[in-house]
Protein backbone atom coordinates (compact mmCIF):
# COMPACT_ATOMS: atom_id res chain seq x y z
CA UNK A 1 0.00 0.00 0.00
CA UNK A 2 2.82 2.39 0.90
CA UNK A 3 4.40 2.11 -2.50
CA UNK A 4 1.09 2.70 -4.32
CA UNK A 5 0.28 5.83 -2.31
CA UNK A 6 3.78 7.32 -2.37
CA UNK A 7 4.31 6.70 -6.09
CA UNK A 8 1.00 8.33 -7.01
CA UNK A 9 1.76 11.30 -4.73
CA UNK A 10 5.26 11.66 -6.15
CA UNK A 11 3.77 11.75 -9.64
CA UNK A 12 1.61 14.71 -8.63
CA UNK A 13 4.56 16.37 -6.87
CA UNK A 14 6.70 16.07 -9.99
CA UNK A 15 3.93 17.51 -12.14
CA UNK A 16 3.51 20.54 -9.87
CA UNK A 17 7.22 21.09 -9.49
CA UNK A 18 7.38 21.45 -13.25
CA UNK A 19 5.28 24.60 -12.82
CA UNK A 20 6.93 25.86 -9.63
CA UNK A 21 10.59 25.46 -10.52
CA UNK A 22 12.06 26.85 -13.70
CA UNK A 23 15.35 25.04 -13.23
CA UNK A 24 15.16 22.01 -15.51
CA UNK A 25 18.23 20.19 -14.26
CA UNK A 26 16.66 20.10 -10.79
CA UNK A 27 14.05 17.60 -11.95
CA UNK A 28 16.22 14.53 -12.15
CA UNK A 29 17.54 15.12 -8.63
CA UNK A 30 13.99 15.54 -7.40
CA UNK A 31 12.95 12.34 -9.14
CA UNK A 32 15.89 10.45 -7.65
CA UNK A 33 14.99 11.75 -4.19
CA UNK A 34 11.38 10.69 -4.78
CA UNK A 35 12.48 7.21 -5.79
CA UNK A 36 14.58 6.87 -2.64
CA UNK A 37 11.54 7.94 -0.62
CA UNK A 38 9.47 5.35 -2.46
CA UNK A 39 12.09 2.69 -1.75
CA UNK A 40 12.07 3.52 1.96
CA UNK A 41 8.26 3.45 2.07
CA UNK A 42 8.24 0.08 0.36
CA UNK A 43 10.86 -1.36 2.71
CA UNK A 44 8.88 -0.09 5.70
CA UNK A 45 5.90 -2.02 4.40
CA UNK A 46 7.86 -5.25 4.33
CA UNK A 47 8.37 -4.72 8.07
CA UNK A 48 4.65 -4.13 8.52
CA UNK A 49 4.75 -0.36 8.96
CA UNK A 50 2.15 1.61 7.02
CA UNK A 51 2.03 5.25 6.03
CA UNK A 52 -1.76 5.19 6.02
CA UNK A 53 -3.85 2.25 7.12
CA UNK A 54 -6.35 1.51 4.37
CA UNK A 55 -8.99 -1.19 4.27
CA UNK A 56 -8.78 -2.42 0.70
CA UNK A 57 -11.81 -4.74 1.05
CA UNK A 58 -9.78 -7.66 -0.22
CA UNK A 59 -9.14 -5.96 -3.56
CA UNK A 60 -5.42 -5.86 -2.87
CA UNK A 61 -3.38 -8.50 -1.17
CA UNK A 62 0.12 -7.73 0.04
CA UNK A 63 2.67 -10.46 0.41
CA UNK A 64 6.43 -10.57 0.65
CA UNK A 65 6.82 -11.80 -2.92
CA UNK A 66 5.10 -8.75 -4.41
CA UNK A 67 6.75 -6.26 -2.06
CA UNK A 68 10.16 -7.63 -2.90
CA UNK A 69 9.38 -7.31 -6.59
CA UNK A 70 8.43 -3.68 -5.93
CA UNK A 71 11.86 -3.16 -4.39
CA UNK A 72 13.53 -4.57 -7.50
CA UNK A 73 11.40 -2.39 -9.78
CA UNK A 74 12.07 0.76 -7.75
CA UNK A 75 15.82 0.12 -7.54
CA UNK A 76 15.93 -0.53 -11.29
CA UNK A 77 14.09 2.75 -11.92
CA UNK A 78 16.46 4.58 -9.57
CA UNK A 79 19.47 3.25 -11.46
CA UNK A 80 17.75 4.18 -14.71
CA UNK A 81 17.10 7.75 -13.56
CA UNK A 82 20.64 8.15 -12.23
CA UNK A 83 22.21 6.84 -15.44
CA UNK A 84 19.90 8.37 -18.04
CA UNK A 85 18.32 11.30 -16.18
CA UNK A 86 20.14 13.79 -18.35
CA UNK A 87 18.85 12.14 -21.52
CA UNK A 88 15.28 12.14 -20.20
CA UNK A 89 15.60 15.90 -19.74
CA UNK A 90 16.86 16.32 -23.27
CA UNK A 91 13.94 14.46 -24.89
CA UNK A 92 11.61 17.43 -24.86
CA UNK A 93 10.78 20.73 -23.26
CA UNK A 94 8.87 19.47 -20.21
CA UNK A 95 11.22 17.19 -18.27
CA UNK A 96 9.16 17.25 -15.06
CA UNK A 97 6.24 15.61 -16.83
CA UNK A 98 8.29 12.69 -18.06
CA UNK A 99 9.39 11.96 -14.52
CA UNK A 100 5.80 12.35 -13.33
CA UNK A 101 4.69 9.79 -15.92
CA UNK A 102 7.46 7.43 -14.81
CA UNK A 103 6.07 7.65 -11.28
CA UNK A 104 2.55 6.94 -12.52
CA UNK A 105 3.86 3.90 -14.36
CA UNK A 106 5.46 2.75 -11.11
CA UNK A 107 2.10 3.20 -9.40
CA UNK A 108 0.61 0.79 -11.93
CA UNK A 109 3.50 -1.60 -11.36
CA UNK A 110 2.93 -1.62 -7.61
CA UNK A 111 -0.78 -2.31 -8.12
CA UNK A 112 0.07 -5.19 -10.44
CA UNK A 113 2.27 -6.78 -7.78
CA UNK A 114 -0.53 -6.83 -5.22
CA UNK A 115 -3.84 -7.22 -7.07
CA UNK A 116 -6.29 -9.70 -5.67
CA UNK A 117 -8.98 -9.63 -8.29
CA UNK A 118 -9.61 -8.90 -11.92
CA UNK A 119 -10.75 -5.33 -11.22
CA UNK A 120 -7.40 -4.31 -9.78
CA UNK A 121 -5.59 -6.25 -12.50
CA UNK A 122 -7.42 -4.20 -15.12
CA UNK A 123 -6.79 -0.90 -13.34
CA UNK A 124 -3.12 -1.75 -12.74
CA UNK A 125 -2.54 -2.65 -16.38
CA UNK A 126 -4.21 0.56 -17.53
CA UNK A 127 -2.43 2.83 -15.05
CA UNK A 128 0.80 1.28 -16.23
CA UNK A 129 0.03 1.49 -19.97
CA UNK A 130 -1.59 4.90 -20.46
CA UNK A 131 1.43 6.96 -19.29
CA UNK A 132 3.59 4.76 -21.52
CA UNK A 133 1.61 5.74 -24.62
CA UNK A 134 2.51 9.35 -23.86
CA UNK A 135 6.15 8.58 -23.10
CA UNK A 136 6.45 6.71 -26.40
CA UNK A 137 5.34 9.83 -28.24
CA UNK A 138 7.45 12.19 -26.12
CA UNK A 139 9.55 13.23 -29.08
CA UNK A 140 6.74 15.23 -30.66
CA UNK A 141 8.44 16.40 -33.85
CA UNK A 142 9.83 12.98 -34.72
CA UNK A 143 7.56 11.03 -37.08
CA UNK A 144 8.92 7.68 -35.92
CA UNK A 145 8.04 8.52 -32.36
CA UNK A 146 4.54 9.65 -33.44
CA UNK A 147 4.01 6.45 -35.33
CA UNK A 148 5.26 4.25 -32.50
CA UNK A 149 3.01 6.06 -30.07
CA UNK A 150 -0.14 5.64 -32.18
CA UNK A 151 0.67 2.02 -32.89
CA UNK A 152 1.26 1.30 -29.22
CA UNK A 153 -1.97 3.06 -28.27
CA UNK A 154 -4.08 1.19 -30.81
CA UNK A 155 -2.54 -2.19 -30.00
CA UNK A 156 -2.67 -1.52 -26.28
CA UNK A 157 -6.31 -0.50 -26.18
CA UNK A 158 -7.24 -3.32 -28.55
CA UNK A 159 -5.70 -5.82 -26.14
CA UNK A 160 -7.45 -4.06 -23.27
CA UNK A 161 -10.74 -4.67 -25.07
CA UNK A 162 -9.90 -8.36 -25.36
CA UNK A 163 -8.90 -8.49 -21.70
CA UNK A 164 -12.20 -6.88 -20.66
CA UNK A 165 -14.20 -9.35 -22.74
CA UNK A 166 -12.31 -12.13 -20.98
CA UNK A 167 -13.04 -10.62 -17.57
CA UNK A 168 -16.74 -10.21 -18.42
CA UNK A 169 -17.00 -13.84 -19.53
CA UNK A 170 -15.23 -15.06 -16.38
CA UNK A 171 -17.65 -12.98 -14.34
CA UNK A 172 -20.55 -14.52 -16.16
CA UNK A 173 -19.24 -18.01 -15.54
CA UNK A 174 -18.16 -17.68 -11.93
CA UNK A 175 -20.09 -14.73 -10.53
CA UNK A 176 -17.08 -12.98 -9.06
CA UNK A 177 -13.96 -11.10 -10.04
CA UNK A 178 -11.72 -13.08 -7.71
CA UNK A 179 -8.57 -14.74 -8.98
CA UNK A 180 -8.89 -17.73 -6.68
CA UNK A 181 -11.95 -19.54 -7.95
CA UNK A 182 -11.44 -22.46 -5.57
CA UNK A 183 -11.02 -26.05 -6.59
CA UNK A 184 -13.47 -26.99 -9.30
CA UNK A 185 -15.48 -30.16 -9.03
CA UNK A 186 -13.87 -33.06 -10.84
CA UNK A 187 -15.95 -35.09 -13.25
CA UNK A 188 -15.18 -38.57 -14.49
CA UNK A 189 -11.60 -38.90 -15.70
CA UNK A 190 -10.31 -36.07 -13.50
CA UNK A 191 -11.37 -33.35 -15.91
CA UNK A 192 -12.38 -30.24 -13.99
CA UNK A 193 -15.93 -29.11 -14.51
CA UNK A 194 -16.04 -25.44 -15.37
CA UNK A 195 -18.41 -23.33 -17.33
CA UNK A 196 -17.56 -22.76 -20.98
CA UNK A 197 -17.88 -19.04 -20.27
CA UNK A 198 -15.06 -19.21 -17.74
CA UNK A 199 -12.79 -21.16 -20.04
CA UNK A 200 -13.31 -18.87 -23.02
CA UNK A 201 -12.79 -15.90 -20.70
CA UNK A 202 -9.52 -17.35 -19.44
CA UNK A 203 -8.30 -17.86 -22.99
CA UNK A 204 -9.10 -14.24 -23.91
CA UNK A 205 -7.34 -13.09 -20.75
CA UNK A 206 -4.33 -15.21 -21.68
CA UNK A 207 -4.23 -13.70 -25.18
CA UNK A 208 -4.40 -10.16 -23.87
CA UNK A 209 -1.66 -10.75 -21.32
CA UNK A 210 0.49 -12.24 -24.10
CA UNK A 211 -0.11 -8.98 -25.98
CA UNK A 212 1.02 -6.94 -23.00
CA UNK A 213 4.23 -8.90 -22.38
CA UNK A 214 4.86 -9.27 -26.14
CA UNK A 215 4.88 -13.04 -26.33
CA UNK A 216 4.60 -14.51 -29.82
CA UNK A 217 2.32 -14.69 -31.81
CA UNK A 218 1.16 -11.38 -30.32
CA UNK A 219 4.55 -9.68 -30.40
CA UNK A 220 4.33 -7.84 -33.75
CA UNK A 221 3.94 -4.37 -32.24
CA UNK A 222 7.03 -4.68 -30.04
CA UNK A 223 9.91 -4.11 -32.48
CA UNK A 224 8.23 -1.11 -34.10
CA UNK A 225 7.26 0.52 -30.82
CA UNK A 226 10.61 -0.12 -29.14
CA UNK A 227 12.44 1.11 -32.20
CA UNK A 228 10.34 4.24 -32.67
CA UNK A 229 10.11 5.38 -29.06
CA UNK A 230 12.84 7.70 -27.72
CA UNK A 231 15.65 5.37 -26.59
CA UNK A 232 15.49 6.46 -22.95
CA UNK A 233 11.88 5.40 -22.69
CA UNK A 234 12.44 2.19 -24.60
CA UNK A 235 14.90 1.31 -21.87
CA UNK A 236 12.20 1.78 -19.23
CA UNK A 237 9.50 0.01 -21.23
CA UNK A 238 11.63 -3.01 -21.96
CA UNK A 239 12.70 -3.54 -18.35
CA UNK A 240 10.56 -2.49 -15.40
CA UNK A 241 7.26 -2.50 -17.27
CA UNK A 242 7.83 -5.80 -18.98
CA UNK A 243 8.96 -7.54 -15.79
CA UNK A 244 5.86 -6.22 -14.01
CA UNK A 245 3.70 -7.56 -16.82
CA UNK A 246 5.21 -11.00 -16.28
CA UNK A 247 4.72 -10.76 -12.56
CA UNK A 248 1.03 -10.01 -13.06
CA UNK A 249 0.75 -12.77 -15.65
CA UNK A 250 2.24 -15.26 -13.22
CA UNK A 251 0.09 -14.13 -10.28
CA UNK A 252 -3.02 -14.31 -12.41
CA UNK A 253 -2.52 -17.81 -13.74
CA UNK A 254 -0.95 -19.32 -10.62
CA UNK A 255 -4.31 -20.52 -9.41
CA UNK A 256 -6.15 -20.67 -12.72
CA UNK A 257 -3.91 -23.20 -14.39
CA UNK A 258 -5.64 -26.09 -12.60
CA UNK A 259 -8.87 -25.10 -14.29
CA UNK A 260 -7.53 -25.66 -17.75
CA UNK A 261 -5.77 -28.95 -17.06
CA UNK A 262 -3.34 -30.43 -19.56
CA UNK A 263 -4.42 -28.08 -22.35
CA UNK A 264 -2.82 -25.24 -20.44
CA UNK A 265 0.69 -26.71 -20.68
CA UNK A 266 0.29 -27.44 -24.38
CA UNK A 267 -0.92 -23.90 -25.08
CA UNK A 268 1.87 -22.41 -23.02
CA UNK A 269 4.63 -24.52 -24.53
CA UNK A 270 3.45 -23.47 -27.99
CA UNK A 271 3.68 -19.81 -26.99
CA UNK A 272 7.10 -20.27 -25.36
CA UNK A 273 8.62 -22.03 -28.36
CA UNK A 274 7.15 -19.49 -30.78
CA UNK A 275 8.43 -16.58 -28.68
CA UNK A 276 11.93 -18.01 -28.40
CA UNK A 277 12.04 -18.87 -32.08
CA UNK A 278 10.79 -15.54 -33.44
CA UNK A 279 12.72 -13.42 -30.95
CA UNK A 280 16.07 -15.12 -31.39
CA UNK A 281 16.01 -15.82 -35.10
CA UNK A 282 14.85 -12.33 -36.09
CA UNK A 283 17.36 -10.66 -33.78
CA UNK A 284 20.19 -12.37 -35.68
CA UNK A 285 19.38 -10.44 -38.87
CA UNK A 286 19.12 -6.95 -37.37
CA UNK A 287 21.63 -4.27 -38.27
CA UNK A 288 20.41 -1.68 -35.79
CA UNK A 289 21.44 -2.43 -32.21
CA UNK A 290 18.27 -0.80 -30.88
CA UNK A 291 16.06 -3.03 -33.02
CA UNK A 292 18.20 -6.04 -32.11
CA UNK A 293 17.57 -5.28 -28.42
CA UNK A 294 13.84 -5.05 -29.14
CA UNK A 295 13.85 -8.56 -30.61
CA UNK A 296 16.10 -9.80 -27.84
CA UNK A 297 13.54 -8.53 -25.35
CA UNK A 298 10.98 -10.78 -27.06
CA UNK A 299 13.44 -13.66 -26.74
CA UNK A 300 13.96 -12.91 -23.04
CA UNK A 301 10.16 -12.86 -22.67
CA UNK A 302 10.23 -16.47 -23.83
CA UNK A 303 12.50 -17.33 -20.93
CA UNK A 304 10.38 -15.46 -18.42
CA UNK A 305 7.35 -17.46 -19.58
CA UNK A 306 9.02 -20.53 -18.11
CA UNK A 307 8.11 -19.18 -14.67
CA UNK A 308 4.49 -19.51 -15.72
CA UNK A 309 5.08 -22.97 -17.12
CA UNK A 310 6.67 -24.28 -13.93
CA UNK A 311 4.55 -22.34 -11.45
CA UNK A 312 6.39 -23.53 -8.31
CA UNK A 313 8.49 -21.85 -5.59
CA UNK A 314 11.69 -22.10 -7.57
CA UNK A 315 9.94 -20.28 -10.42
CA UNK A 316 9.04 -17.47 -8.02
CA UNK A 317 12.70 -17.07 -7.05
CA UNK A 318 13.55 -17.35 -10.72
CA UNK A 319 11.27 -14.53 -11.83
CA UNK A 320 12.68 -12.23 -9.14
CA UNK A 321 16.22 -13.03 -10.18
CA UNK A 322 15.34 -12.74 -13.86
CA UNK A 323 13.63 -9.40 -13.37
CA UNK A 324 16.68 -8.04 -11.53
CA UNK A 325 19.28 -9.48 -13.92
CA UNK A 326 17.42 -8.56 -17.09
CA UNK A 327 16.49 -5.04 -15.94
CA UNK A 328 20.02 -4.20 -14.81
CA UNK A 329 21.66 -5.48 -17.97
CA UNK A 330 19.17 -3.88 -20.35
CA UNK A 331 19.26 -0.52 -18.56
CA UNK A 332 23.07 -0.65 -18.77
CA UNK A 333 23.14 -1.44 -22.49
CA UNK A 334 20.54 1.21 -23.29
CA UNK A 335 22.36 3.83 -21.21
CA UNK A 336 25.37 3.32 -23.49
CA UNK A 337 23.24 3.09 -26.64
CA UNK A 338 21.65 6.48 -25.94
CA UNK A 339 25.11 8.04 -25.87
CA UNK A 340 26.04 6.64 -29.29
CA UNK A 341 25.74 8.85 -32.36
CA UNK A 342 24.98 5.90 -34.64
CA UNK A 343 22.66 3.09 -33.52
CA UNK A 344 23.76 0.59 -36.15
CA UNK A 345 26.20 -2.20 -35.43
CA UNK A 346 28.90 -0.34 -37.35
CA UNK A 347 28.41 2.60 -35.03
CA UNK A 348 29.95 0.50 -32.27
CA UNK A 349 33.13 -0.25 -34.22
CA UNK A 350 36.20 0.50 -32.14
CA UNK A 351 34.35 1.72 -29.07
CA UNK A 352 36.87 -0.13 -26.89
CA UNK A 353 39.64 2.19 -28.08
CA UNK A 354 37.82 5.48 -27.69
CA UNK A 355 35.76 4.65 -24.56
CA UNK A 356 37.23 1.56 -22.83
CA UNK A 357 35.05 1.90 -19.71
CA UNK A 358 31.82 2.05 -21.70
CA UNK A 359 32.87 -0.93 -23.80
CA UNK A 360 33.73 -2.97 -20.70
CA UNK A 361 30.40 -2.24 -18.98
CA UNK A 362 28.45 -2.96 -22.18
CA UNK A 363 30.30 -6.24 -22.56
CA UNK A 364 29.39 -7.35 -19.04
CA UNK A 365 25.74 -6.39 -19.61
CA UNK A 366 25.62 -8.27 -22.92
CA UNK A 367 27.28 -11.32 -21.36
CA UNK A 368 24.62 -11.26 -18.68
CA UNK A 369 21.85 -10.99 -21.26
CA UNK A 370 23.18 -14.00 -23.11
CA UNK A 371 23.51 -15.97 -19.87
CA UNK A 372 27.24 -16.56 -19.57
CA UNK A 373 28.32 -17.94 -16.15
CA UNK A 374 29.63 -15.48 -13.52
CA UNK A 375 26.99 -12.95 -14.55
CA UNK A 376 23.49 -12.51 -13.15
CA UNK A 377 21.89 -13.66 -16.39
CA UNK A 378 23.31 -17.14 -16.01
CA UNK A 379 21.63 -17.79 -12.67
CA UNK A 380 18.42 -16.19 -13.85
CA UNK A 381 18.21 -18.60 -16.78
CA UNK A 382 19.40 -21.48 -14.60
CA UNK A 383 16.67 -20.93 -12.00
CA UNK A 384 14.01 -20.75 -14.69
CA UNK A 385 15.06 -24.01 -16.32
CA UNK A 386 15.64 -25.72 -12.97
CA UNK A 387 12.10 -24.77 -11.98
CA UNK A 388 10.73 -26.44 -15.10
CA UNK A 389 12.77 -29.59 -14.42
CA UNK A 390 11.59 -29.59 -10.81
CA UNK A 391 7.98 -29.24 -11.90
CA UNK A 392 8.43 -32.58 -13.68
CA UNK A 393 8.26 -33.83 -17.24
CA UNK A 394 8.90 -31.68 -20.31
CA UNK A 395 12.67 -32.02 -20.52
CA UNK A 396 12.50 -31.36 -24.26
CA UNK A 397 11.35 -27.78 -23.73
CA UNK A 398 14.39 -27.12 -21.52
CA UNK A 399 16.70 -28.47 -24.24
CA UNK A 400 15.03 -26.24 -26.84
CA UNK A 401 15.47 -23.24 -24.54
CA UNK A 402 19.18 -23.94 -24.07
CA UNK A 403 19.63 -24.21 -27.84
CA UNK A 404 17.96 -20.83 -28.32
CA UNK A 405 20.13 -19.34 -25.57
CA UNK A 406 23.10 -20.48 -27.66
CA UNK A 407 21.64 -18.67 -30.69
CA UNK A 408 21.28 -15.51 -28.59
CA UNK A 409 25.01 -15.61 -27.80
CA UNK A 410 25.65 -15.03 -31.51
CA UNK A 411 23.89 -11.68 -31.83
CA UNK A 412 25.02 -10.35 -28.48
CA UNK A 413 28.62 -11.19 -29.32
CA UNK A 414 28.38 -9.36 -32.63
CA UNK A 415 28.19 -6.12 -30.65
CA UNK A 416 31.15 -7.14 -28.47
CA UNK A 417 33.09 -8.08 -31.59
CA UNK A 418 32.33 -4.70 -33.16
CA UNK A 419 33.54 -2.89 -30.06
CA UNK A 420 36.79 -4.79 -29.55
CA UNK A 421 37.92 -6.31 -32.81
CA UNK A 422 36.81 -3.92 -35.53
CA UNK A 423 38.50 -0.73 -36.55
CA UNK A 424 36.56 2.46 -36.54
CA UNK A 425 35.96 5.56 -34.53
CA UNK A 426 32.75 5.09 -32.58
CA UNK A 427 31.32 8.52 -31.91
CA UNK A 428 29.64 9.24 -28.63
CA UNK A 429 28.15 12.33 -27.13
CA UNK A 430 29.88 13.79 -24.11
CA UNK A 431 30.50 11.24 -21.35
CA UNK A 432 30.82 12.47 -17.79
CA UNK A 433 32.89 10.79 -15.07
CA UNK A 434 29.78 10.17 -12.97
CA UNK A 435 28.14 8.27 -15.83
CA UNK A 436 31.17 5.98 -16.11
CA UNK A 437 31.15 5.28 -12.37
CA UNK A 438 27.42 4.55 -12.45
CA UNK A 439 27.85 2.21 -15.36
CA UNK A 440 30.70 0.37 -13.63
CA UNK A 441 28.52 0.01 -10.52
CA UNK A 442 25.76 -1.58 -12.61
CA UNK A 443 28.32 -3.95 -14.13
CA UNK A 444 29.66 -4.70 -10.65
CA UNK A 445 26.16 -5.45 -9.39
CA UNK A 446 25.59 -7.84 -12.30
CA UNK A 447 28.78 -9.72 -11.48
CA UNK A 448 27.95 -9.74 -7.77
CA UNK A 449 24.52 -11.30 -8.37
CA UNK A 450 26.19 -13.68 -10.81
CA UNK A 451 28.66 -14.84 -8.17
CA UNK A 452 26.27 -14.89 -5.23
CA UNK A 453 22.61 -15.00 -6.30
CA UNK A 454 21.77 -15.78 -2.67
CA UNK A 455 22.64 -12.15 -1.82
CA UNK A 456 19.50 -11.11 -3.63
CA UNK A 457 17.30 -14.05 -2.73
CA UNK A 458 18.13 -13.95 0.99
CA UNK A 459 16.43 -10.57 1.17
CA UNK A 460 13.33 -12.23 -0.17
CA UNK A 461 13.13 -14.54 2.83
CA UNK A 462 13.98 -12.00 5.52
Amino acid at each position, binding site marked *: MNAIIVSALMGVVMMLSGILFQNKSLMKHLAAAGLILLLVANLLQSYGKYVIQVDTHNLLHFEQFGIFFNTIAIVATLIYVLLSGKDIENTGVHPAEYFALVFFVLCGVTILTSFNGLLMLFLGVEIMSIPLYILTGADKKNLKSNEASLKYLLMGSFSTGIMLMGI*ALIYGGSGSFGINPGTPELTVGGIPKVSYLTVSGLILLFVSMCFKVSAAPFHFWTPDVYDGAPSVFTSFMATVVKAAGFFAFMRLFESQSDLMGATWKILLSFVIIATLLIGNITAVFQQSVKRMLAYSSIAQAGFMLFALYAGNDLAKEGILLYAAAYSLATIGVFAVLIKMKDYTLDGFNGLAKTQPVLALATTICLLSLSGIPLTAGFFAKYYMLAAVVKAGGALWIVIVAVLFAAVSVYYYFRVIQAMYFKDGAAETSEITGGFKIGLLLVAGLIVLIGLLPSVLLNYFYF
Partner: protein
Amino acid sequence: MPIQYYIYLSLVLFSIGIIGVLTRRNAIIVFMCIELMLNSVNLLLVAFSKMHLAFAMANDKLATTVGTDGQLFVFFIMVVAAAEVSVGLAIIVMLYRNTHSVDINFLNRLKN
Protein backbone atom coordinates in the same frame (compact mmCIF):
# COMPACT_ATOMS: atom_id res chain seq x y z
CA MET B 1 -35.25 -11.84 -21.93
CA PRO B 2 -32.99 -14.89 -21.73
CA ILE B 3 -29.32 -14.16 -21.00
CA GLN B 4 -28.26 -15.74 -24.29
CA TYR B 5 -29.70 -12.82 -26.23
CA TYR B 6 -27.50 -10.40 -24.34
CA ILE B 7 -24.44 -12.59 -24.81
CA TYR B 8 -25.07 -12.84 -28.56
CA LEU B 9 -25.74 -9.12 -28.88
CA SER B 10 -22.57 -8.10 -27.11
CA LEU B 11 -20.50 -10.71 -28.94
CA VAL B 12 -21.82 -9.34 -32.23
CA LEU B 13 -20.97 -5.77 -31.19
CA PHE B 14 -17.54 -6.92 -30.02
CA SER B 15 -16.90 -8.67 -33.33
CA ILE B 16 -17.97 -5.58 -35.28
CA GLY B 17 -15.42 -3.66 -33.21
CA ILE B 18 -12.65 -6.18 -33.93
CA ILE B 19 -13.44 -6.26 -37.65
CA GLY B 20 -13.42 -2.47 -37.70
CA VAL B 21 -10.02 -2.30 -36.01
CA LEU B 22 -8.60 -4.80 -38.47
CA THR B 23 -10.04 -3.37 -41.68
CA ARG B 24 -10.60 0.39 -41.35
CA ARG B 25 -7.78 2.75 -42.26
CA ASN B 26 -8.84 5.94 -40.55
CA ALA B 27 -7.26 6.28 -37.09
CA ILE B 28 -10.36 7.93 -35.63
CA ILE B 29 -12.67 5.19 -36.88
CA VAL B 30 -10.31 2.52 -35.56
CA PHE B 31 -10.47 4.29 -32.25
CA MET B 32 -14.28 4.35 -32.36
CA CYS B 33 -14.26 0.61 -33.03
CA ILE B 34 -12.12 0.07 -29.93
CA GLU B 35 -14.67 2.07 -27.95
CA LEU B 36 -17.39 -0.16 -29.38
CA MET B 37 -15.49 -3.20 -28.08
CA LEU B 38 -15.28 -1.69 -24.59
CA ASN B 39 -18.95 -0.76 -24.59
CA SER B 40 -20.08 -4.20 -25.68
CA VAL B 41 -18.23 -5.48 -22.61
CA ASN B 42 -20.12 -2.96 -20.47
CA LEU B 43 -23.42 -4.28 -21.79
CA LEU B 44 -22.38 -7.86 -21.10
CA LEU B 45 -21.25 -7.03 -17.56
CA VAL B 46 -24.56 -5.39 -16.70
CA ALA B 47 -26.48 -8.32 -18.18
CA PHE B 48 -24.44 -10.83 -16.17
CA SER B 49 -24.85 -8.73 -13.07
CA LYS B 50 -28.64 -8.87 -13.40
CA MET B 51 -28.44 -12.59 -14.14
CA HIS B 52 -26.48 -13.32 -10.96
CA LEU B 53 -28.90 -11.16 -9.00
CA ALA B 54 -31.90 -13.05 -10.37
CA PHE B 55 -30.29 -16.39 -9.49
CA ALA B 56 -29.46 -15.26 -5.97
CA MET B 57 -32.92 -13.79 -5.41
CA ALA B 58 -34.56 -17.03 -6.47
CA ASN B 59 -32.83 -18.82 -3.59
CA ASP B 60 -32.73 -16.06 -1.01
CA LYS B 61 -35.08 -13.09 -1.06
CA LEU B 62 -32.64 -10.96 0.98
CA ALA B 63 -29.66 -11.30 -1.38
CA THR B 64 -30.28 -7.93 -3.00
CA THR B 65 -26.61 -6.88 -3.24
CA VAL B 66 -25.44 -9.77 -5.40
CA GLY B 67 -24.13 -8.58 -8.74
CA THR B 68 -23.36 -5.00 -7.73
CA ASP B 69 -19.64 -5.61 -8.33
CA GLY B 70 -20.37 -6.20 -12.01
CA GLN B 71 -22.08 -2.84 -12.34
CA LEU B 72 -19.27 -1.13 -10.41
CA PHE B 73 -16.80 -2.57 -12.88
CA VAL B 74 -18.72 -0.84 -15.67
CA PHE B 75 -18.00 2.54 -14.11
CA PHE B 76 -14.30 1.76 -13.92
CA ILE B 77 -14.31 0.76 -17.58
CA MET B 78 -15.99 4.06 -18.49
CA VAL B 79 -13.40 6.07 -16.55
CA VAL B 80 -10.48 4.19 -18.06
CA ALA B 81 -12.00 4.46 -21.55
CA ALA B 82 -12.31 8.21 -21.09
CA ALA B 83 -8.67 8.47 -20.02
CA GLU B 84 -7.63 6.36 -22.97
CA VAL B 85 -9.64 8.50 -25.39
CA SER B 86 -8.10 11.72 -24.11
CA VAL B 87 -4.60 10.34 -24.56
CA GLY B 88 -5.49 8.74 -27.87
CA LEU B 89 -7.01 11.86 -29.40
CA ALA B 90 -4.01 13.88 -28.24
CA ILE B 91 -1.73 11.43 -30.05
CA ILE B 92 -3.88 11.57 -33.19
CA VAL B 93 -3.81 15.38 -33.14
CA MET B 94 -0.03 15.28 -32.74
CA LEU B 95 0.22 12.95 -35.74
CA TYR B 96 -2.12 15.15 -37.76
CA ARG B 97 -0.01 18.23 -37.08
CA ASN B 98 3.05 16.49 -38.44
CA THR B 99 1.59 14.66 -41.42
CA HIS B 100 -1.79 16.33 -42.16
CA SER B 101 -3.43 12.93 -42.32
CA VAL B 102 -4.96 10.41 -39.94
CA ASP B 103 -4.49 7.45 -42.25
CA ILE B 104 -3.15 4.30 -40.66
CA ASN B 105 -1.47 3.18 -43.89
CA PHE B 106 1.01 5.85 -43.06
CA LEU B 107 2.17 3.68 -40.17
CA ASN B 108 4.68 1.59 -42.07
CA ARG B 109 7.69 3.85 -41.87
CA LEU B 110 9.22 1.72 -39.10
CA LYS B 111 9.08 -1.51 -41.07
CA ASN B 112 12.37 -1.45 -42.92
